[in-house]
């Protein structure tokens, strides 16, 4: 039992040194998550609208993009953007490469979420809008999308939780987020178990409130349908 006790002894002793260092990384994690969410939502909206366009080409391109992004690991996409672009002269800072890489995949997920949200809005709404003389774009902007938002929020919250965890992957391209900070700390202190467990704890501290929020949103918004 003394090995177990020793473990916790060391962890508690090192806490004041480890925690601030890791929390700096956690802040970067949150920044990457936020930036990616915005990119994914915007790009995903474009993809969703492409699928509903009358031009079949746009729909096909959008669907193909989504299928491809969902069949390739994030790590691979990230390496293509970080290392691949670097080899042809475009060296992106790891934060930017991270947001682009994660955002490309995120757009595919958000496109599906948004599309489902739009389809959940009764078609009579669009009909009433265009009967009043609104163009399809106006109908989408003022009538359909605002209502679609209610259906989109809960899955988006779920996606965000997955995104938060996926940011750990960008540690492989030395983006200064939480897991990268952890790796650096381990290489300096040779206390992998303590450091990684603390790191896991910090991830939990970030994801758990998000999970509760998602749960709450799901329950509240499904009521008034």
């Amino acid at each position: 039992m003394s090995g177990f006790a020793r473990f916790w002894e060391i962890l508690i002793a090192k806490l004041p040194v480890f925690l601030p260092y890791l929390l700096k990384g956690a802040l970067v994690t949150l920044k990457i998550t936020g930036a990616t969410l915005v990119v994914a939502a915007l790009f995903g909206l474009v993809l969703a609208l492409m699928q509903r366009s009358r031009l079949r080409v746009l729909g096909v391109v959008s669907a193909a993009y989504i299928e491809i992004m969902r069949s390739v690991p994030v790590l691979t996409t990230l390496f293509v953007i970080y290392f691949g672009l670097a080899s042809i002269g475009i060296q992106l800072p790891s934060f930017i490469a991270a947001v682009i890489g994660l955002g490309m995949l995120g757009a595919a997920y958000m496109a599906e979420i948004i599309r489902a949200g739009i389809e959940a809005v009764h078609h009579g709404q669009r009909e009433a809008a265009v009967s009043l003389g609104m163009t399809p774009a106006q109908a989408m902007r003022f009538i359909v999308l605002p209502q679609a938002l209610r259906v989109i929020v809960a899955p988006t919250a779920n996606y965000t939780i997955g995104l938060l965890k996926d940011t750990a992957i960008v540690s492989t391209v030395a983006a200064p987020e939480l897991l990268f900070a952890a790796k650096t700390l381990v290489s300096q202190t040779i206390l992998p178990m303590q450091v990684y467990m603390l790191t896991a704890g910090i991830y939990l501290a970030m994801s758990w409130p998000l999970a509760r929020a998602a749960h709450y949103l799901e329950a509240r918004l499904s009521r008034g349908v």
Partner: protein
Amino acid sequence: MSPTDHSAPPMVRVVDLHKQFGDHEVLRGVSVDVAMGEKIAIIGPSGAGKSTLLRCINYLERPQRGHIFLDGVLVGERQENGHYVQVSERDLAPVRAQMGMVFQRFNLFPHLTALQNVAISPHRVLGLPKAEAESRASELLDKVGLSGKTHAFPEKLSGGQQQRVAIARALAMRPKLMLFDEATSALDPELIGEVLEVIRTLAREGMTMLIVTHEMHFAEDVADRVLFMDDGVIVEEGGPHVIFRAPQHERTRAFLRAVLQR
């Protein structure tokens, strides 16, 4: 009822309309002229094509054959080197703005208040400043008897109230023509009267209307002309006193017998 002017060109002209869904032909060559200020009631059994006719007039449905004219202007098509070409949804917006449609299921915008429902199109489509649009909306809600409910959301309104908001919403665009697609069919019986009253008022004021309805007494009361449709064609048309009292065709008689047995 205000007099109908038959000397001027018709407000609506429908020419040989054909519409099918898949391989089911719903409209098999329908033609009708509606004069300005005329009130047309369209009756008939389910599946006769009554709603589809209305929905083709504002091009919510695109016919396979036939043409629609609103006040002399082609609807949903343009002419190109002697051919007719159907236009895009975007290009339909301006002409649809000249027609008002009231749906069976109201289709009010749930995320907007009654006032906002009525004001949004004058503001966004006609470009009226927000204050002016809302002032117009306020007047119209007053007119349909809902002055106290301007800030209520649709979910708080009864069916009859919602439908009256829907009528005000359509009127806010100052349309040349009103299309009523079974406007009272989804209402509880005790709420039907208030909506019919609003439609009557509009009729008295001279609005050109096409009304698809199952309310036979109302149709007889309000209409200048009644169309009986069955199986995709207009079987018989004439003044209400003719259609309801002395129908010529057996199908018309059979339908009226079945419906008026209540």
